[in-house]
């Protein structure tokens, strides 16, 4: 039976969800911008290639151990800027390596544009769609485990074909993750905008890196 109290509760729920959505996308914009700045600093400093691995390892450890706790307080905002800043800084040597190649600038710009198109398209689709994509959870997390095993193997095997397969798989998996995450925020299942931002940021970052790899391998005649 609908009464004023239940209507007020529903309205409050919608307001809370919209607040989480707004805060998530605001924080995402800020962290992406900050990442771009740290990437440019890293490129200007001509950081060595091992910077990428160091930054990725540091960011992963912070993301696994520190962020879930810090996300419950204001310090989570500072920590997510640190994590995304590290990931951006680690990108510098990668981007410099591409710029040294012929057509490297075009590859970077194309990967950037492609990542933006994928993210905006999928987010818009998830927000506009009436479907709940949370059913993807089991599939996505299982897929992540498969990808991680393949990545561990390729760290030592360094096979271009395997690299290509991993990059392709990551793009599809992260695309599904964008649908999944956005749907969970929209339905009110995810209420912490810091963790929501972290999830979507990682999807965008991984799609960008994977696109760079695919375009770098396949874009060469």
């Amino acid at each position, binding site marked *: 039976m609908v009464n004023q109290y239940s209507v007020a509760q529903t309205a409050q729920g919608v307001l809370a969800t919209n607040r989480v959505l707004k805060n998530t996308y605001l924080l995402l914009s800020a962290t992406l911008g900050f990442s771009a700045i740290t990437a440019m600093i890293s490129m200007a400093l001509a950081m060595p290639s091992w910077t990428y691995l*160091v930054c990725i390892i540091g960011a992963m450890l912070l993301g*696994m151990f520190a962020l879930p706790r810090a996300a419950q307080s204001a310090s989570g905002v500072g920590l997510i800027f640190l994590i995304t800043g590290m990931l951006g800084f680690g990108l510098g040597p990668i981007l410099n390596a591409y710029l040294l190649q012929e057509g490297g600038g075009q590859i970077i710009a194309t*990967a950037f544009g492609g990542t933006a198109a994928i993210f905006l398209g999928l987010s818009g689709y998830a927000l506009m769609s009436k*479907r*709940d994509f949370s059913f993807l*959870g*089991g599939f996505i997390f299982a897929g992540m485990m498969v990808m*991680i095993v393949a990545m561990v193997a390729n760290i030592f095997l360094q096979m271009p074909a395997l690299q290509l397969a991993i990059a392709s798989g990551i*793009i599809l998996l992260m695309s599904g993750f964008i649908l999944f995450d956005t749907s969970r925020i929209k339905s009110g299942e995810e209420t912490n905008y810091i963790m929501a931002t972290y999830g979507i940021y990682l999807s965008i970052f991984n799609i960008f890196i994977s696109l760079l790899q695919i375009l770098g391998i396949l874009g060469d005649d």
Partner: protein
Amino acid sequence: MEMFLKIAAAGVLIMMLFFLWPTVKNWQENGPKAQRGDWMAVALPLGGVVLLVVLLVLMVR
């Protein structure tokens, strides 16, 4: 140095596997199941992503 970092990266990734396993189990057992038409609703945008990537590859060749 490079080999040490590769080993460290592999170690962190393996740690992530152990972190992920309870989440995977929980979602497989308790996660919502797909309704009719849900997988098609996912296949369409992902198919679009595949086409976009193919287009991007053709653009840089």
